[in-house]
């Protein structure tokens, strides 16, 4: 690997800041996973890590290696694209599994279930289709 001292000071500071930002956001997401109460609340916490948490670290990596190799290194863009495209799949799988379980158990916190047909979905008047 190339000598790290080659990095100009402004780039080093920027990279350090972005890595720290990404790491802190991911850590907060992990803390949220412990702290939040219900399953549906906890599902929100890791998205911090998959958006700006990962984003900060990836941008820092792009700047770092682009500066060292004096050519644009951009394949981190692919990582962020794949993360963005794949997280909804897992999230929906988890959320629907939880919803299925809670409905089977008749949990109270759930919204009114939409039966097939002209079922009433709630107080919102714009709901009718």
């Amino acid at each position, binding site marked *: 690997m190339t000598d790290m001292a080659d990095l100009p000071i402004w780039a080093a500071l920027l990279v350090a800041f972005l890595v720290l930002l990404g790491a802190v*956001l991911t850590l*907060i*997401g992990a*803390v*949220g996973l412990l*702290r*939040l109460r*219900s399953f*549906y*609340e906890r*599902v*929100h*916490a890791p*998205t*911090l890590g*998959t*958006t*700006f948490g990962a984003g900060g670290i990836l941008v820092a990596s792009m700047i770092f290696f682009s500066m060292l190799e004096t050519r644009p290194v*951009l*394949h981190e*863009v*692919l990582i962020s694209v794949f993360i*963005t*495209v794949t*997280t*909804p799949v897992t*999230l*929906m799988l988890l*959320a*629907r599994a939880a*919803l299925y379980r809670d409905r089977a158990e008749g949990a109270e916190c*759930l*919204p009114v279930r*939409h039966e*097939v047909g002209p079922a009433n*979905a*709630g107080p*919102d008047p*714009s*709901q009718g*289709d």
Partner: protein
Amino acid sequence: MMRSVLPYPLLALSLLVMWILLNGLSVGQLLLGGVVAVAASAVMAQLKPAKPRLRNWRAVMRLALILPVDIFRSNMAVSRQILAGTGGRKISGFVAIPLALRDRTGLAILACIITSTPGTAWVEYDSNRNTLLLHVLDLGSEDWIKLIKTRYEQPLMEIFG
């Protein structure tokens, strides 16, 4: 002629860009990536997927500009809420959103947007009623139905028609 060689130009272009990003830019890689892109999109054509048509590039641009800002703002909001602990408890809950968007690609992109905005999670989509069940971490006083519909669904409808 163009149709038969490149049935899915956007797909072929994305594959070529991906190839270049992975292998670096050079004439050889450009040629090799081009061959891979054309061959792979020809295989894809055999599956006959629905062809998404981007109708409005300005709406794409507008959406691409507001998204990072929204994602950043909700990152901050969710972080604050987690760090506030039990003192700053907010009310979370489900919101049912009646959608007008029916295009599959549009819905997929809406799912990516909603998932990658911390604080909102896509829970269930009912294709019969075309309603989306959303879980929101901080319900607040926001009108979530209006927010999702005007901020994200409207531009997606303009893009995919």
